[in-house]
């Protein structure tokens, strides 16, 4: 976008001279009123991608060091009954006898190209276990996120704008209680009520949409409170902003003011909180999958830990982190879209 800032000195006479027919200056085809300028600049996009790339590299590095710290990485990759010769063969195969930088580069390269060491249990690439599990995790994460955001926004909005004192106080405090409860306790609680007592919903599995309900809600209740609190604080702050007063002088309805000038402006801090909470969302999904017997990546990871199937463990950890980083980057991009100023500071 061309630099708008210009010298402000503008002789008064010019204004008078321009008071003639203006529409003549505007070509006919441009008679459309220009709306919002949407979209990130190419520069901003590159920056986002760059930081996510760095983050992914960082994660891989951490995993690498975790493996190296065990002392003898070959042990991790071999089955427990491996003989000394087999261990040596593995060592040479994966280059564990080479220098550290060399190993690092090989490791990174393998991770990126999907060339994972073979799973001990199945003697196949871990991806065969993990890839089918991804949809289950993603569906859980997204529906939980969706529920949490909706609940949080509605409760936050009500706590500020509702006419009824009850609606302003009760939902917010109710959510706050859930915030302090671990996800498995919420899960068990919900199971107790809805599955065992009432029998409405299944206790787990992955067959139907119904089986998604309880896990999503358990997960969502974990951080809906945060969203509600942040949204509420943000609404308060924006409601007393000067541009809202300015909007009051215009001939638009109170409803329009509220929506366009207050609510949407207040969404920005919610987005940044969202980015932080997604980490706990993904962590919580591991527990939730275990509780509700959903075959997502979390379950794969837990099973692998049980079996000490290190290749799968490594692959699962890396993939979960990659998913996290991607979602975070998406949230950043949405932030930039919503508030034009963030892009300037990106």
């Amino acid at each position: 976008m061309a630099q708008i800032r210009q010298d402000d000195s503008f002789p008064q006479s010019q204004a008078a001279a321009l008071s003639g027919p203006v529409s003549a200056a505007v070509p006919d085809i441009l008679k459309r009123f220009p709306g919002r300028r949407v979209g990130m600049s190419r520069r901003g996009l590159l920056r986002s991608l760059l930081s996510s790339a760095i983050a992914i590299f960082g994660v891989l590095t951490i995993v690498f060091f975790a493996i190296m710290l065990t002392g003898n990485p070959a042990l991790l990759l071999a089955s427990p009954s491996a003989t000394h010769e087999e261990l040596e063969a593995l060592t040479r195969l994966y280059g564990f006898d080479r220098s550290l930088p060399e190993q690092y580069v090989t490791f990174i390269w393998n991770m990126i190209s999907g060339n994972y060491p073979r799973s001990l249990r199945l003697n196949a690439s871990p991806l065969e276990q993990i890839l089918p599990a991804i949809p289950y995790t993603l569906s859980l994460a997204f529906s939980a996120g969706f529920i949490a955001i909706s609940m949080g926004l509605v409760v936050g909005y009500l706590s500020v704008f509702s006419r009824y004192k009850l609606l302003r106080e009760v939902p917010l405090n109710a959510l706050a209680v859930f915030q302090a409860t671990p996800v498995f306790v919420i899960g068990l609680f919900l199971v107790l009520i809805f599955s065992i007592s009432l029998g409405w919903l299944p206790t787990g599995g992955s067959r139907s949409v119904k089986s998604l309900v309880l896990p999503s809600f358990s997960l969502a209740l974990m951080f809906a409170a945060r969203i509600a609190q942040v949204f509420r604080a943000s609404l308060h702050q924006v409601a007393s902003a000067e541009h809202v007063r300015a909007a009051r002088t215009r001939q638009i309805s109170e409803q329009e003011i509220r929506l366009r000038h207050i609510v949407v402006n207040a969404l920005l801090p919610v987005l940044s909180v969202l980015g932080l909470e997604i980490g706990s969302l993904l962590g919580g999904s591991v527990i939730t999958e275990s509780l509700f017997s959903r075959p997502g990546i979390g379950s794969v990871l837990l099973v692998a830990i049980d079996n000490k199937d290190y290749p799968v463990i490594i692959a699962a950890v890396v993939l979960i982190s990659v998913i996290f980083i991607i979602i975070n980057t998406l949230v950043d991009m949405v932030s930039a879209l919503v508030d034009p100023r963030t892009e300037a500071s990106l």
Partner: protein
Amino acid sequence: MTTKALRNFAISASTVRQRKSMWRRRTNLRLVVGAALLAGTSIMTLGAPFFAPYSLDFYDLDAILMPPGPAHLFGTDEIGRDVLSRVIWGGRPILFIVFFSTVLSLLIGVTLGFMSSANNLANTALSRLADIQLSIPSLVFALLAIAVAGSQMSNLVVVLALAAWPLHFRVVRAHALAVKKLPYFEASRLAGSSLFYRVMRNYLPGVLPLLAVTTSVTATVTALSATGLSYLGLGVSVPDWGRMIAISKGQLSDAAWASGFPALALILFLLGIQLIADALSDRVKGRGGAPHERR
């Protein structure tokens, strides 16, 4: 903000003075209740040798799954262990992990935060490090560490501290960078005061409330992670609340007390920390945040 604007604000704020004092009372209430819950559960747990009627492992196969009664106030579990005693004993691992992990994360975070504000290179490097640490969900990071190094208490403390230090780091760093630009900081420098004096007087008072908030938040998150891990069976080998809930979850429909009471204890403990965290963060925000955030 001009003087006039400030005066106007003060005038309009006087109308919310009533609302504010009510709100401050609410904050204090939360602090008190939170502290009470936290202290209560902690004392109970620490004083387990005195409070618990039975030992942790004592079991009586003739008294399986008995509902709460005079002999066993909280009932018994699947192999006849007294739930009350187990609840009292079961808080110890969690308490220890949360405490030591939080302290360790503070040490790391504050030290690195200071280092990062002193030097430009350190700033970029350490900030990146913090970002990377935050790119792995903390539970997943813990699982990796456990898989690789085992789940002894010391490992868990270190791992959870590693997951939590970026929070303190960011706060310490941001505050340092902001204070550096403030006029009164420079005035101190012009006055010729020593570095030590400047840090103590100009920097510390502002950062302590912020750290109070991050500490309580860290404690909450760490507690949730630790119990989550023990629920999954990957925590310490000593039975704690998470483990108990996991073990007895099969009995939910018939003998809810075996899982229920540990869950209740856990909730009260977490609620205590959470309330303190909320009250502190409201306090800090209510005062207008750190000085550099004001006006």
